């Protein structure tokens, strides 16, 4: 199998902190790798190294077969990058932003203009194309930013938290665009703090925490790694919750978490469920809800890292690159 992106042992230090502490990852051609992790896990640092913006202190990486350090120029002609904040020139119009990129990619003026018009149409920005980007909404800016990274028809696309700060509708729209790109065979590396986003889009997922890859696999594989399924029981009578908890603790051997009128516990052996049901029946407890399901990525993340994947704060500071992000 050929890999569009291959990284081995990437290390990046900022003083005492290790933003990356030996990261390995591979992305097969035409696939989407979701890099999942909380703020400060090293996701952006990894993207910046792979996109030739930052040099790793150790390790090496190739993109489309070219070494990101020795062959940076060739790598740059094959990649597109969309960063955490919309990197568009706000004083230029949408058209001008895209034409500028086209011209920088050595397209003749007419071709650059045609490509700009094509991309604006594709991203639903044709009407706004003649307006300065500073008049755009957040979602429009992100779309223009993504369009800018596509001007050169990249083979490999880096999307660094492309939906952070977007409203749910714009987010779903962006997912649609990413799926379209994947259908065209573009390889994508997408970083996100949103577990649902990785779940929706990624072929494979790697989980970053403190500059390391702490888990990798498909969404289903990751969910299976905790080995657990989640049992939730909600009694019809809220007063029975104590009894439910006692029964579960007795059968499973672990006290369930009791919150919001239901008891939740991880079970490794689904065969235990019928005996819980029997015991509850004997006690005359009626369950209005009883479910056994695979762990969500959220729970996987909690199990892997010992902490929840923080939701990004509403307004993320625009970190300068000296700060490991």
């Amino acid at each position, binding site marked *: 199998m050929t890999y569009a992106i291959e990284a081995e042992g990437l290390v990046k230090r900022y003083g005492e902190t290790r933003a990356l502490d030996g990261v390995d990852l591979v992305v097969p051609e035409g696939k989407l790798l979701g890099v999942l992790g909380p703020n400060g896990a090293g996701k952006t640092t990894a993207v*910046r190294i792979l*996109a*030739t*913006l*930052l*040099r790793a202190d150790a390790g090496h990486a190739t993109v*489309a*077969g070219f070494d990101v350090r020795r*062959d940076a*120029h*060739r790598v*740059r*002609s*094959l*990649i597109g*990058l969309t*960063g*955490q*904040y*919309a*990197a*568009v*020139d*706000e*004083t*230029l*119009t949408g058209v*001008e932003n895209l034409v*500028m*990129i086209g*011209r*920088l*990619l*050595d397209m003749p003026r007419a071709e650059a203009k045609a490509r700009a018009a*094509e991309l604006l*149409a*594709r*991203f*639903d920005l044709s009407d706004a194309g003649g307006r*300065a980007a500073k008049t755009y909404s957040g979602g429009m800016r992100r779309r223009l930013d993504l369009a*800018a*990274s596509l001007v*050169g*028809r*990249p*083979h490999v696309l880096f999307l660094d938290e492309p939906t952070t700060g977007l409203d749910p509708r714009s987010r779903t*729209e962006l997912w*649609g*665009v990413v799926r*379209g790109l994947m*259908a*065209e*065979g*573009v390889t994508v590396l997408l970083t996100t703090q949103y577990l649902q986003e990785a779940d929706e889009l990624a072929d494979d997922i790697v989980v970053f925490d403190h500059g390391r890859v702490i888990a990798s696999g498909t969404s289903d594989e990751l969910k299976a790694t905790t080995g657990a399924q989640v049992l939730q029981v909600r009694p019809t009578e809220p007063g029975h919750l104590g009894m439910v908890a006692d029964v579960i603790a007795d059968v499973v051997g672990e006290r369930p978490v009791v919150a919001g009128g239901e008891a939740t516990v991880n079970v490794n052996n689904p065969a235990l469920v019928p005996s819980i049901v029997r015991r509850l029946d004997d006690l005359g407890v009626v369950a209005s809800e009883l479910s056994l399901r695979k762990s969500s990525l959220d729970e996987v993340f909690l199990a892997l890292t010992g902490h929840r994947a923080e939701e990004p704060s509403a307004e993320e500071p*625009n970190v*300068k*690159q000296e700060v490991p992000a």
Partner: protein
Amino acid sequence: MTVITQTAPETTPVAVMPGRVSPLASLRHTMTLAWRSLVQIKHNPLELLDLSVQPIMFLLLFTYVFGGAIAGSTTEYLQFSLPGLVVQNMLFATLTTAIGLSTDITKGVFDRLRSLPIARSAPLAGRIVADTLKQVWAFALFLGLGIVLGFRVHQGVFGVVGALALLLGFALAMSWLSVLIGLLAADPEKVQIMAFSVMMPLTFTSNAFVPTDTLPEWLQRWVEVNPVTHLADAVRGLLTGGPVATHATISLLWAVGIAVVFAPLSLRALRRRT
């Protein structure tokens, strides 16, 4: 959003893909990025006014507010102060580079440009080319408005061209300092503050606006080395007559000194980012 045109990535003939940028392409990239800095003026001619407000205001204020007190007459003072104002404005304007660069960095535009297969020098060079053209505009504005107000050029076209060349040469050297500030400042506002707190004292502790012998003696000693003094005197000489050679030479030596110190520091700061 839902209309996805089929634009499969073309299989770029990777083998013939160049590994670096040709000098001609570098120049093209630089010009594209210079265009980018200037095109806003085309849409929004008010931008041009933005560039011009400070020169016009300073010229009017200095001439009509201080003229009488300092030189006894506004026209006479204009003859003395216009070259000084031109120099001061040139120094302030070099910080346009820092502000633009800092904006690009905070907005992520700088990274986008660096992720493109373009000459590494183009983002800086493009900006500096554009800012140099803005310097030419400000110089022309000063001279034009000055002439309307009564300023007289005594040294002809060669004097004017010489003065402009000297100013641009110095501005180019100062760009290296500006680039360093742009790379190190946390955001564009910090650049403004830095600009004000460095450029104001630097330009006022010179003979740009008042003759040196009116100052306290301890200050005179600094004024005599301050490059602003020599630049102002050289520009005076080139426009209105008077000694030029020594002042121009000292100005250029300062320019070389500034470039020698700050070019490597800027390039190091730039490399640090990678």
